[in-house]
Structure formats: structure tokens, C-alpha cells
């Protein structure tokens, strides 16, 4: 029942359910033993670029990535 008490806290911290569940999933992945751990972690790479538009003009795209730019 600990998770029930935690619900308002992550919501209050400005997280959505998706972020919350991702953090939980990442914790579970980190519980794996090697070599499965690195395998599971390399599978979950995030990379995309997102741009918001104002008045029909794109603003500078932000790159969301957890791999450093080469």
C-alpha cells in the first residue's frame, strides 16, 4: 500500500504518470544482473528532436537525447 500513499507526491512534483512509470521501470531494469542489465539499458535509448511552433514559425528544436552527441 506504499504506492497508494506516494501517488499525490509524484503528481505534486509535476510528474505525469508516464514519467513516474518510467522511473519505476528504470529501477526494475537496474535490478537485473549483468550481462542482461547493460543489454536492457542499451535497448532503451531515447533520442528525438522536438520543436514548438509559435505563430506559424518553428522555434529552435530541442534535442532530447540520453546519448552524448558524437
Amino acid at each position, binding site marked *: 500500500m506504499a504506492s497508494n500513499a506516494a501517488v499525490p507526491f509524484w503528481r505534486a512534483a509535476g510528474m505525469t504518470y508516464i514519467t513516474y512509470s518510467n522511473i519505476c521501470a528504470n529501477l526494475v531494469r537496474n535490478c537485473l544482473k549483468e550481462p542482461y542489465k547493460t543489454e536492457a539499458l542499451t535497448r532503451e*535509448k531515447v533520442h528525438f528532436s522536438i520543436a514548438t511552433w509559435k505563430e506559424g514559425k518553428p522555434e529552435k528544436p530541442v534535442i532530447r537525447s540520453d546519448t552524448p552527441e558524437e
Partner: protein
Amino acid sequence: MAMAALRREGRRFAPLLSPRPIAAVRSSLVSEEDIPFGARSISTQVVRNRMKSVKNIQKITKAMKMVAASKLRAIQIRAENSRGLWQPFTALLGDTPSVDVKKNVIVTVSSDKGLCGGINSTSVKISKALYKLNSGPDKETKYVVLGEKAKAQLVRDSKKNIELTISELQKNPLNYTQVSVLADDILKNVEFDALRIIFNKFHSVVSFLPTMSTVLSPEIVEREAEAGGKLGELDSYEIEGGETKAEILQNLAEFQFSCVLFNAVLENACSEQGARMSAMDSSSRNAGDMLDRLTLTYNRTRQASITTELIEIISGASALEG
């Protein structure tokens, strides 16, 4: 020997004799009637060059087809597995494509790269139709565009309505973490009553169905549930723990969006590879046809010049004898 020498002579004199040597060469590709007076043999260089380039293009398209085919196999399994993610949601919340709300957000899923047939134009077309369908007084419809190709098409006439564009999604193999971070970003950046995700659902290598999935915001789900219908059954579920129904619904809506988006992105990537495969298949077939035609022209021209030379030699010899 004599024939080879003659041919060489002929080639050397051809530009001198013919008034429009280049035009004559060009016409050898189109018709053989326009050969200028006095030209004995036509250079087949242009046809040979064209044949070489067509052959190279065919090699490239064949290679692209192979690449697409192997990528398709990998992604098809993932796409089919990901269908299990949204099906429970549809069973629970139902799919309500006709829901009438104020703030619509159309999420158009497309590819970053081209050369994959008409899948991107299809999703753009459906999105525009949906925009027309949902526009009206005191209504607001916005686009969220995934992929470069749909962006390029939507910028032309509806750039005022674009809210977000996302690209470079397929740099790494698609995975749920990535799509969920993306879904999170979309949720935080747009206000919506209903999200409508447009993508090409993969049916087989040659058929893709443009599909719309609707994700409602928690308030709308509640409104619809009160109105009855499929969503009315929501109340018959027992909720464990101390959460209120509104909290549960908000969590569900967020999770539903990321799952549906994940499936949409995978299905679309799968359709993209399938479409690319069939497009490349037909283009290498066309290159083959073109090559056949060019070879025929080339051989016919060559044969004609040899025949002419033979006739000249024989008639010259017989003139000397006689």
C-alpha cells in the same frame, strides 16, 4: 581488317560530314529516321552511358529493397507485439472517434525519410480531412507532427495550426521508453480534450490502412461516462486503494496515450518499410524494362551500322571486279 579501318574512318569523318552531329546522336535515342545526310555511323556513346546509369540506379534500388526487407522483418514482429498494449484500453474505454469536443489535437505520424510511396501523403490527407471535420466556431484544432515528411507537407498550408513538430525519432531502434518520453512532452506542451493519432496501420507488405486512434482527456472520459454508452460501464469497475476516480482516469488517459502512440509509431515505421520495399521493387523492375529497351535500341543501331558497312564493302568490291 578493312572493315575495322573503314569504321574508324567513318567515325572520324562523321562529325565533319554531318551538319548537326550532336542532334544526330540525340535522335538515335528517339528515332532513327532523322539521320543527317552523309552520316555513316552514329556514335552509340550516349546510349551506352544511359545504359550504364540505368544499371547503376537499378543496383541502388535493389539494395534499398533488400535493406527495407530486412528492417521490415525486425520491426514487424515488434509492431504486432505492441498491438497487445492498446487492445485492453479499447476494451476498457472503447474507441470513440466521433466524440465532439472543443480542443482537438491531431497527432500525425509520418516518416523522416522519403522514397516510401504514398504513406506520408495519406496520413497528411486524413489529418487535413479530420481538421475540416472538427473545425467550427469556438473550436480549436492543432497539429502535432511526427516526422519530417508530414511537416514539409503541412507547413505549406496549415503552418498556423502546428503546435509541435518532432523528428529524428528513428535514430535508435524504436522503444517504449523513447516514445513514452515523447508522449510525456506532448502532454505537457499541448492542451487537449481529445488527441487523435493518425497513422498507417500495417496490414501486409502492400496494404496499409490509414487509422485514427482517439485518446480522450480525463474530464471528457468522465463526461462521456455520465452520458452512458460504452463508457458508462466504467462505474461497474471496483477501484482499489484510496484513489479517486478522477485520479485513476488521469493516470489511465496518460498511460493510454503513451501506449497508443507507441503502437502508432511502430505500425507506421512498419508500413514505411513495407511501402519502401514495394516502391523499390517496382522501380528496379522499371529500370530493368528501361534497360531492355535501351539494349534493343543500342543493338539495332550497332547492327544497322555494321550492315551498312558490309554493303559498302561488298558493293565496292563487286564494282572493282566488274
